[in-house]
């Protein structure tokens, strides 16, 4: 099938690009490990309430770290896309009969790989620190958060193609990064906060992914939160891929 073949070709191209810049692989791994090393002790010292019981800090925190990694792996896509736009690569590929969705998917799949592989490493290290692993749940966490990476990656690429300027893209991405991550309860559960904060959290699509990831990591697979999480994240990914493809169809310097 041509589409699958082309997606694979673009995926391989993007993987090679990443392997030639190993600095990104290193920072992709060092950031979550620093969170584990530096933030977890901080969290441990504030734990002890009903929403963050002492002794289970890591079990709440690791799914959050994974969600943060998924977000970070995807949101960088736009920078490369702008560079490819400026060097004419996208224009050249658009004159070939290649599928525009495949063109987008090459980058998206690379970002998913760049989330899953370091994610597995982080889980392994967290287990060493006392994180309780529920394997089926963790596998589903990776699937769910891979969808989150795909949604972020396609959105970032679409933003890059629309904004065309690194500066504008940086402003938008850093502008949404804080509210999105904070209001999803990645670092601290939103249940610690006041009601109005929790209401705001419900407006954030990422919130549902993080809630679902916490349930799954705890080994409870059949909760309503898990269903909602997959539904919202899946819909966000589908919408972002549709928008990204549209932007690739019209991409122009």
């Amino acid at each position, binding site marked *: 099938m*041509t589409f699958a*073949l*082309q997606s694979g*070709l673009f995926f391989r*191209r993007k993987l*090679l*690009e990443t392997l*030639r*810049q190993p600095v990104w692989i290193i920072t992709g791994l060092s950031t979550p490990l620093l969170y584990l090393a530096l933030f977890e002790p901080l969290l441990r010292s504030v734990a002890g309430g009903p929403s963050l019981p002492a002794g289970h800090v890591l079990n709440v925190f690791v799914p959050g770290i994974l969600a943060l990694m998924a977000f970070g792996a995807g949101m960088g896509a736009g920078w490369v896309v702008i560079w*490819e736009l*400026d*060097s*004419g*690569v996208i*224009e*050249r*590929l*658009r*004159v*070939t*009969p*290649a599928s525009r969705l495949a063109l987008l998917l090459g980058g998206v799949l690379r970002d998913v790989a760049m989330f899953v592989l370091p994610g597995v490493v982080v889980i392994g290290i967290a287990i060493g620190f006392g994180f309780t692993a529920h394997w089926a749940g963790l596998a589903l966490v990776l699937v769910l958060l891979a969808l989150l990476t795909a949604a972020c990656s396609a959105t970032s690429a679409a933003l890059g193609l629309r904004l*065309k300027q690194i500066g504008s893209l940086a402003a938008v991405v850093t502008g949404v990064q804080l509210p999105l991550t904070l209001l999803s309860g990645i670092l601290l559960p939103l249940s610690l906060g006041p009601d109005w904060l929790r209401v705001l959290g419900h407006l954030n699509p990422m919130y549902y992914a993080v809630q679902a990831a916490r349930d799954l990591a705890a080994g409870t697979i059949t909760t309503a939160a898990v269903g909602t999480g997959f539904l919202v994240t899946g819909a966000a990914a589908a919408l972002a891929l549709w928008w990204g493809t549209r932007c690739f169809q019209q991409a*122009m*310097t």
Partner: protein
Amino acid sequence: MPVAESPPVAIQAHGLRKSFRVKTQVVSAVSGLDLTVEAGQIFGFLGPNGAGKTTTLRILTTLLPADAGEAVVAGADVTRSPQRVRRRIGYVGQLGGADGSATGRENLLLQARLYGLTATAAAARAAELIELFDLGPFAGRTVRSYSGGQRRRLEVALGILNRPGVLFLDEPTTGLDPQNRANLWNQVRQLRDSGTTVFLTTHYLDEADQLSDRLAIVDRGRVIAEGTPAQLKQRYSGDTIVITPERPAGLARLEQELASLAFVRSTETRDGSIRLAVTDATQSMAAVFTVLADRDIAVRAASLAQPSLDDVFLHETGRSLRDAGEPAAQPSSGQPAGEQVAV
């Protein structure tokens, strides 16, 4: 992959229009453009910056939908069957388009696979192009490390990988040194000789003049003149003879007398010389000398001034092409339209 059978007409466009919204203004980049390009030619598309060359090219290569009008390229309609057009054309954009983080060979292999070649056929085609464009010494290095000329060679190789019936080149020699420019001209001529129609935009007068078999001169989104370079120059300015008599006395009378000759279209006296626009300089020269001999006028210098394509542009627009550049009417340019800026 068989060589695409070229139809006698490679490009046929009618009434193309495209405008962009720049801030609050609507700027017309292409305004009712008609074009016919016969197969097997090098067709030059000459005009100042902002004349609508790149926008036209993007419409013809399926990159940009036109607001109005239609275009058939390599036998397929750009709006109704863009995929068929894409299979039959090659394109080398102004920005180049080689992927800097991949090697030259990887660039070629990916492009080949995208046109549907199997892995084996792609490797063979890549090897063939590496040989043809002499990319061998650096085909295994990432493109980022290439010189300008090496990069341009790779990009042209990418453009003709699918053996296109029509190859589009957008300002292909901009930024190249004279040596690489001459090499590229040769490659373009070889492609034409092997049956490819080459459509190239340029704002260089000499490039349009020397490389094109036929050319269209564009200004403000319209074709203002079209023909072979020789025809155009002949049609609009004829040849020019410059006579400088030994003594300036009687210059006005001499000019009058020469102006009455049948083949002289116009005369002008400047700095002690008479400039005669004639229909055919080589034939007219003898007649002019006869007049000079009859009147016993000693001549210090007599020369033929060849008209240039700039004379054609000047004749049609009242501006010199060298000064006519304006900010490109592109969606992202954000420049005010219609303001003239020297190139």
